């Protein structure tokens, strides 16, 4: 094999999401600016990112104060909002604004496509001299002789399924840096290795996750109300399973509809994908979606542990930024403004170190104090009871408790943590759980199967490449996972990657349709035996989300 190229920068950033791009932009705004490179595994910036999204402008105001004049794609201000509790398949309660938790109020916020926002941020970064390499997946952390991070390597291109180089093989590139920033988003695959190697979560509770599934619809003009935001919880999620939905009326008669399901759910029969499809039959959604057509689909895990799960953000030679460092504000259900802020804090700490001649490879411990002094930390602290209340008191009472807590006590009321066990440990045996059945696809209003959905994620993987979903022990899926949990991967995966073939026969086997993968990372999080490791496939593979 030919040698890997080697390139050197002052700072290398993994992931062109809001956190990585905010880091890059803040660094590049400095004078003199360090050299900055961003690698992104999607075929273009924005191809792999997915969010609701309602965003608070605070982060963007600080990063690029004249974003309005510069044409940032924040087109739709929130005009009106509604909060619901769905009681069953027909009924819902509208929760009056006067008693809903203040953190859920969205006046002054904007509805955006996070993908388009990232595309715009990337153009801003490039105009400041940042090198962005889309289609390059960082697959390896590079360590120096003292165990410090000295950069990352991107994966080889053109490796066959048999692991051998093909005719068009091109070796990866070593990107070396004085500081490396990991901004891969929730459950980044290099970040996971760093957590383990440096014990980044030794002082915090395990991270908690949720799976968000989203569709974009084009609806009839007379059912569309520009700027309307609807949130809620309740049906169809069964008791003991937490989550909530969103429905946003965007420009061009498009609406974003989605369901977020916490991944500490206990019932192995649960299928978040089917819950979402079923949810859209509720009159609240049907009234909006009927006569429309679905134009895009996607899914992504999110890190919602908030304050309690906040890991150490620094280690020798590098830092975490954004959701990789768990900065999503779960009480506000928002992570974009906090990711931007997190990126800026990291950049400012790096600039401060470089200003006094930091040679690189050091641990930027000052990041901790910088974080603690920021509004980001204060917001997460105030919001920490939000999730705890919902878990402890249930959705309805917990919501009321949250409202009182935030209004009167500023989030100071002590509430016990929901549990320090990671998400994959919460499944109960299938035999002791109530089997759930879901209506089959009707393909018209709201029910689709996984494959027709994945089709709308525009996901593409070169077929002749090694499987990017690694099983530590290949016997587990059809062994203990099947016996105890009826192999839940076939249900939690929102893209139909995991398929049990020959179930009930003598020789069942798990078929991994890796080409369907939308890079949501749920399998890496929820497998009861923690047996699945998601690694980055060949650069440029994966979904191609437009406007998501």
């Amino acid at each position, binding site marked *: 094999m030919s040698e890997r*190229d080697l*390139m050197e920068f002052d700072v290398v950033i993994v992931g062109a999401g809001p956190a990585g791009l905010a880091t890059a932009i803040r660094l590049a705004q400095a004078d003199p600016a360090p050299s900055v490179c961003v690698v992104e595994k999607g*075929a*273009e910036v*924005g*191809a792999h990112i997915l969010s609701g999204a309602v965003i608070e402008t605070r982060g963007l105001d600080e990063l690029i104060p004249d974003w309005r004049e510069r044409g940032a794609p924040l087109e739709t201000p929130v005009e009106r909002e509604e909060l619901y509790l769905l009681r069953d398949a027909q009924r819902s309660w509208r929760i009056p604004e006067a008693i809903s938790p203040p953190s859920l109020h969205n006046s002054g916020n904007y509805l955006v*496509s996070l*993908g*388009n926002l990232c*595309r715009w941020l990337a153009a801003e970064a490039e105009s400041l001299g940042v*090198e962005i*390499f889309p*289609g*390059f997946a960082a697959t390896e952390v590079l360590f120096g002789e003292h165990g410090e991070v000295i950069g990352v390597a*991107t994966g080889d*291109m*053109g490796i066959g399924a048999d692991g051998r180089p093909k*005719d*068009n093989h*091109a070796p990866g*590139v070593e*990107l070396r840096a004085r500081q490396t920033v990991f901004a891969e988003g929730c459950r980044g695959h290099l970040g996971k290795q760093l957590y383990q190697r440096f014990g980044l979560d030794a002082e915090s509770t395990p991270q908690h996750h949720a799976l968000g599934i989203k569709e974009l619809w*084009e609806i009839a003009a007379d059912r569309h109300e520009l700027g309307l935001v609807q949130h809620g919880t309740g049906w169809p999620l069964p008791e003991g399973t937490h989550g909530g939905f969103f429905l946003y009326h965007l420009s*061009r*008669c498009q609406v974003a509809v989605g369901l977020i399901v916490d991944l500490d759910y206990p019932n192995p029969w649960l299928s978040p994908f089917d819950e979402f499809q079923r949810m859209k039959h509720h009159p609240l959604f049907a009234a909006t979606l009927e006569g429309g*057509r679905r*134009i895009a689909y996607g899914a992504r895990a999110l890190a919602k542990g908030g304050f309690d799960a906040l890991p150490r953000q620094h280690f020798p030679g590098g830092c975490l930024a954004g959701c990789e460092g768990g900065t999503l504000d779960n009480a506000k259900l928002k992570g974009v403004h906090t990711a931007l802020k997190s990126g800026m804090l990291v950049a400012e700490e790096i600039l401060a170190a470089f200003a006094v001649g930091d040679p690189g490879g050091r641990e930027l411990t000052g990041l901790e104090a910088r974080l603690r002094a920021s509004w980001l930390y204060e917001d997460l602290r105030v919001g920490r009871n939000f999730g705890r209340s919902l878990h402890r008191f249930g959705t309805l009472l917990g919501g009321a408790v949250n409202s009182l807590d935030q209004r009167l006590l500023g989030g100071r009321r002590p509430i016990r943590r929901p549990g320090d066990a990671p998400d994959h440990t919460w499944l109960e045996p299938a035999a002791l759980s109530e089997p759930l059945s879901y209506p089959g696809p009707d393909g018209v209003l709201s029910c689709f199967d996984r494959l027709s959905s994945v*089709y*709308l994620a*525009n996901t*593409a993987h070169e077929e002749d490449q090694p499987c990017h979903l690694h099983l530590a022990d290949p016997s587990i899926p059809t062994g203990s996972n099947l016996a105890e949990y009826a192999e839940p991967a076939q249900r939690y995966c929102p893209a139909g990657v995991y398929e049990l073939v020959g179930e009930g026969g003598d020789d069942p086997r798990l078929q991994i349709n890796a080409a369907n993968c939308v890079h949501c990372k749920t399998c890496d999080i929820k497998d009861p035996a923690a047996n699945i490791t998601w690694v980055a496939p060949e650069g440029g593979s994966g979904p*191609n989300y*437009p*406007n998501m």
Partner: protein
Amino acid sequence: MKILVPIKRVIDYNVRVRVKSDHSDVDLANVKMAINPFCEIAVEAAVRLREDGKADEVVAVSVGPKAVQEQLRTALAMGADRAIWVETAEDADLGPLGIAQLLAALVREEQPGLVLLGKQSIDGDNNQVGQMLAGLLGYPQGTFVSGLEVVDEGIEVVREVDGGLQTLALRLPAVITTDLRLNTPRFIRAPDIMKSRRKPIAHTGAEQLGVSPAAGPRLLAVHPPEPRAGGIRVESVGELLERLRQAQVI
């Protein structure tokens, strides 16, 4: 020898094409765009000829609004030496003939020994520009090429024709359009992306080239194909035959 490679910016082949709800066109808002796959093969072929010492300069050219510079950068990162952007208005109504006229004017200016371009674009699927360009210039043409070799004063090409493969010898200068099997384009290396930013992209337009390009066909409406009706499961061979007879296919 100088090789001119015209390339086109099109919707990425991995993206599902969606028609706008008013049927006025395909929706391209924020959709991933890419270099047309056949054009990418042409760039690869040109760069290989230069690497083999058969050519000394590869010039990529694209006709379109500002965004086409992205694809010119891709061609530069693949190994083209310089690029020319022929600017047209965002809403310019150009068809294959107009494009061919602009390219012909450019060829007269640049005097390349070879024009290498994709046989067709995956959006319009016209398969006309190469042929029209050769006609306007009075150059020999080799279309749907899956093999090529530079020989003393000319070039030998293998064409994919209906009945099999046809080998032609052409005198230079010539126009060649590439088919899928000519090569597999390389993966772009990160250092080459950085180098491509230092390569020049010259700017020109219809006026500078002295061309008033012909208008293209007018797009009236775009409709997606009817969705396929679901199949049914039959219980027996007898029922299958019965159904096929009902459908009058046997």
